[in-house]
């Protein structure tokens, strides 16, 4: 059974259609990320699921029970959906333990559940502190513990890491996922950060203009995006015009096999997706004759890898990623390009 199932959800704010028919299923025990740029409707979706807004049309069911529909609107407090808002929203007048115990009945509060979830989020012994005595990251952990404590059907995380600095964010992400797993919780994470979505979630739902445009595992969303927009949104993408013919794509920088293989006989104009890690660079003088060459514009060194931006003769700029230890090309040097692996291509509208 799925913990959450949304079908054809619609919600408009005046003329703006925030949700234009969203359907989404979250299996019990999984963590699903709703990924999209700001304004795509993901926060509205979250608020509708939480019962803070009413749907215009469509249905939402939690644990198989309808909570929102044409004639149903279960109020927030009876949905068993716990919220983790952006900055935690801890109750400033309650201690950490009281915050965590807020959603528990009296018996459960004394059962040790508070200490248990505090331990899960790595805040053993912080129960007596007041929220203002905690750092931003600790506040978020408490907010998560508070949401976990009543064992809700679903936990909704609303950009919970956006207010934190990068170092804290990575740790916290890992710990949050661990805590959610350890407790067997089901969660929906709303975010505009693709790195966050891909690294944390079991499944990613990409939203655009009030619709889910693609849903799948992080790998499939990254490797086989539904369209060029998704491709560019979930990761760095080199998008080139090309022609598909007999399973191969012809591009300005050479040819490569297309995935999946199309059985087209006549050459078709396509848009070709190449991820930067699919581009190999070699020094121009060592390249095979006839290879396409480009000029290095700059190098961004990231430690584990390096992103090299090059410019083709026709002015097109491309990025190539190489692992540490690979050959170095300084700005201004001439390199030859080669596509590794199969590429993705979508038919292009003529004109």
């Amino acid at each position: 059974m799925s913990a959450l199932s949304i079908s054809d959800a619609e919600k408009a704010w005046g003329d703006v259609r925030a949700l234009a028919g969203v359907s989404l299923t979250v299996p019990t025990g999984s963590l699903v990320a709703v990924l999209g740029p700001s304004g795509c409707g993901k926060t509205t979706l979250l608020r509708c699921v939480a019962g803070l807004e009413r749907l215009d049309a469509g249905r939402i069911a939690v644990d198989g029970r309808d909570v929102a529909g044409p004639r149903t609107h279960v109020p927030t407090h009876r949905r068993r959906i716990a919220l983790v808002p952006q900055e935690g929203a801890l109750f400033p007048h309650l201690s950490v333990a009281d915050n965590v115990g807020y959603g528990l009945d009296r018996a459960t509060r004394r059962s040790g559940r508070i200490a248990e979830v505090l331990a899960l989020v790595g805040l053993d012994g912080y129960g007596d502190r007041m929220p203002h005595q905690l750092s931003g990251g600790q506040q978020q952990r408490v907010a998560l513990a508070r949401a976990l404590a009543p064992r809700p059907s679903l936990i909704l995380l609303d950009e919970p890491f956006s207010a934190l600095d990068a170092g804290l964010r990575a740790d916290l992400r890992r710990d949050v996922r661990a805590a959610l797993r350890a407790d067997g919780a089901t969660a929906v994470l709303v975010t505009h950060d693709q790195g966050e979505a891909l690294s944390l979630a079991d499944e990613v739902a990409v939203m655009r203009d009030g619709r889910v445009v693609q849903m799948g595992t992080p790998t499939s969303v990254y490797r086989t995006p539904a369209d060029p927009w998704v491709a560019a949104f979930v990761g760095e993408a080199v998008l080139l015009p090309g022609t598909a013919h007999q399973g191969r794509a012809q591009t300005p920088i050479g040819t490569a096999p297309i995935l999946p293989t199309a059985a087209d006989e006549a050459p078709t104009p396509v848009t070709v997706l190449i991820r930067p890690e699919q581009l190999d660079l070699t020094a121009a003088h060592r390249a095979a004759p006839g290879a396409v060459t480009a000029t290095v514009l700059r190098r961004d060194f990231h430690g584990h890898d390096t992103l090299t931006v090059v410019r083709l003769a026709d002015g097109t700029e491309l990025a190539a990623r190489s692992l540490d230890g690979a050959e170095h090309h300084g700005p201004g040097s001439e390199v030859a390009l080669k596509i590794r692996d199969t590429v993705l291509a979508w038919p292009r509208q003529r004109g």
Partner: protein
Amino acid sequence: MLAATVAVVVALIPLAYLAIRTVEAGWPAIRTELTNPRVADLAARSLALAAVVTAGCVALGVGTAFLVTRTDLPARRLFTILAALPLAVPTYIAAFTWVSTITGFEGFWASALVLTLCSYPYVFLPVAAALHRADPAQEEVSRSLGRGAWTTFTSVTLPQIRPAIAGGALLVALYVLSDFGAVAILRTDTFTRAVFIAFDLGFDRTGALVLSTVLVALTVLLLAGETLSRRRGARYARVGAGARRPHSPARLRALRWPAAAALTAVAALAFGVPAANLARRLAAGVSRPGSLPEIATAAGNSLTVSLGGAALTMLLALPIGLLAARAPGVLANGLERLSYLTHALPGIVIGLSLVFFGINVAYPLYQSVWLLTFAYAALFLPLAVAAVAGAAAQAPPVLEEAARSLGRRPAAVFATVTLPLTLPGIAAGAAMVFLTCMKELPATLLLRPTGMDTLATELWTHTSVAAYAGAAPYAALLVLLSAIPTWVLAARTGLLQQEGDQ
């Protein structure tokens, strides 16, 4: 929304009454009243007085607030309390003590001085609280970017506290328009005084009520002005999480003691003059100061009706204030603004309107404590609404949403989250209303149950027959009892806590 509308309706009873009576009076009577050149004269003088007093209160209030929150002024907590204390002195007592201290103390500037000294806490309290809450980091950034202390104050701090200043200034301006006590004693011809005189001059209700209608029009002007300034001032909030750090005080150096002396002087003028004068009068005259039980009964009655008034006013203010803070929009703002309309009306008009309401509509309530508390609510709703709206900001909606998502029913969420967070602000509002009810006279005289005396009415009884010594104990007790809630208000600024307290 419904509850807020009901609350506003209560506040609008006086306006409905005015409308009915003005229409009854008919056009010729209205025209005669309005075309009189003195109306323009009075309007100009009333507005000028309101402007001067408001400017004075802003200067004094913001200055004092700055000194006690941002500098190394000695005895800052003491000065915080001293700056709140003038609220405990009714303007009629202050004016009277000034007149009897300085011969020939009267006229426009005398009224302006006394009203400023009595009302600057309306600006001081919210501004001090806002300064105390403001994020020091923003000011530090400004200083680090090479801006001086003054530029930083005007370009960074001032915009943050502008809503607090505007709110306080509005209350002062409305109060000045409605004040009768001080301008009567100091012989300054304002609109409100003309309204009272119209009643005294042969029971000229029509004239008085037409004038009051003009007063309402002036209030609309003021409110429009304030709304404009509000629109320009966006919402300012602290960004990011984490604990608030205390401000590091600016060093006054050579100015430290002169500043302290200046604040002492203001306190002496605002509170010392009335207190000293009352003490002298207590010691002098021989008129029967009223037996002890009578004083105790009057004090008891004052406390009862003021508590009742504060309770009812807060009850009505809660929906409006919460609505204005939570669901800002044309309707909510309109409702909030409407509640201010009656605030500039003289107490006697509010009183008569509730006499009308009581006689014609709610006869069983007539001359009961209920109707009196209704009058207080109609008079002082804006004070309470401002407090509730401010308090609601302490409990942002996201907290309630989080709480509801954890499975608590809305009522439980209100009790466990909203109320504890807003209660201090609501208590401060209640203290302010309570204090103002204690001092109210004209409406109390008209609406109190027959035979019931309060401190204010006893004070009036005695001063109207020149029995000043007899009046003194009532005045002293009134000031003393009113001083207690000012403590609550001073504490609300957050400045009374020990430094380093959590």
